[in-house]
């Protein structure tokens, strides 16, 4: 029991790293492709989200933690979401006229 550590294999860590670098190259090269502001911003932050998923799951091994720890980690994201949603529900609707 004690000897069975749940963790990604060493090879997986290297593959994840290659994935992270590939994503970085995608954003860096994408910066020189004229594609318009909005698509590029979406690409850049989409890449950030993908990198986050790779780091959180394979380097930080969030899914191997117990339930209470995952709830605590998730709580940070929930409050961050509240912070953004409530603030922008003000700033983005100020010019609305009914």
């Amino acid at each position, binding site marked *: 029991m*004690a000897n069975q*550590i749940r*963790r990604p294999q*060493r090879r997986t*860590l*290297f593959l*994840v*790293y290659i994935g*992270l*670098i590939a994503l*970085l190259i995608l*954003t*860096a090269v994408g*910066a*020189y*492709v*004229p*594609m*318009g*502001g909005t698509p*590029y*911003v979406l690409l*850049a*932050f989409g*890449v*950030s989200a993908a*990198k*986050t998923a790779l*780091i*959180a799951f*394979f*380097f*930080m091994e969030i899914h191997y*933690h*117990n339930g*209470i*720890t995952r709830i*605590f*980690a998730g*709580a*940070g*994201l929930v*409050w*961050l979401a509240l*912070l*953004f949603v409530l*603030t*922008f529900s003000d*700033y*983005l609707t100020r010019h609305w006229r009914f």
Partner: protein
Amino acid sequence: MSKAAATATLAEQFEHPKQQEEASSLGIWTFLSTEILFFGGLILSYSVYRVNYPEGFAEGSRHLYFWIGTINTFVLLTSSLFMALAVHSIQDGDQKKLRRFLVLTFLFGAAFLGLKLVEYYLDASDHLVPGFNFDPNKYARPHHVEMFLFLYFALTGLHAVHMTLGLSALSYLYIKARRESFSESYHTPVKIVGLYWHFVDLVWVFLYPMLYLIGKP
């Protein structure tokens, strides 16, 4: 590891090592949750200003050193790989590899900070520091550019402070690792510092597009 050695690292309030490790894990994730909100406040300010003044922010972003930011992202992602490998090595009980990967993580972290300092020096030479030598005459929207640059220094500065703390924690781990304080069955501190290190890496993963990429296309 013998039972006696396992109990030597077990604090008296815990029943067994697994419980101790879970408590430490919960502790660091609680801390990281507050860190999400710590950076979140600044990132929110950035987002509000960026939505209101997109042209000024794009203009400011174009004055930063894109390639230094990109190389630094590469350096930091690499240091995170080494940190993950350090945890992996001690889980196999390999002391030598643990020390090697801790040193590599430290060196890449230090390289990141070194490059950041070079970049700050270049930024200052370009008169980009608000309240110090910012030159408003060069820009179409000087006030918005200045606000962008203020947030740039606040965000990267706070991140650099976190990197410095991370490097101190790595030095502490290295000293402990030289005394062979960690083993297959006890390496919680290595994991905890690892989680912190990956988190600081994650923050940079978002700062990079926010600061260096928005003005590009």
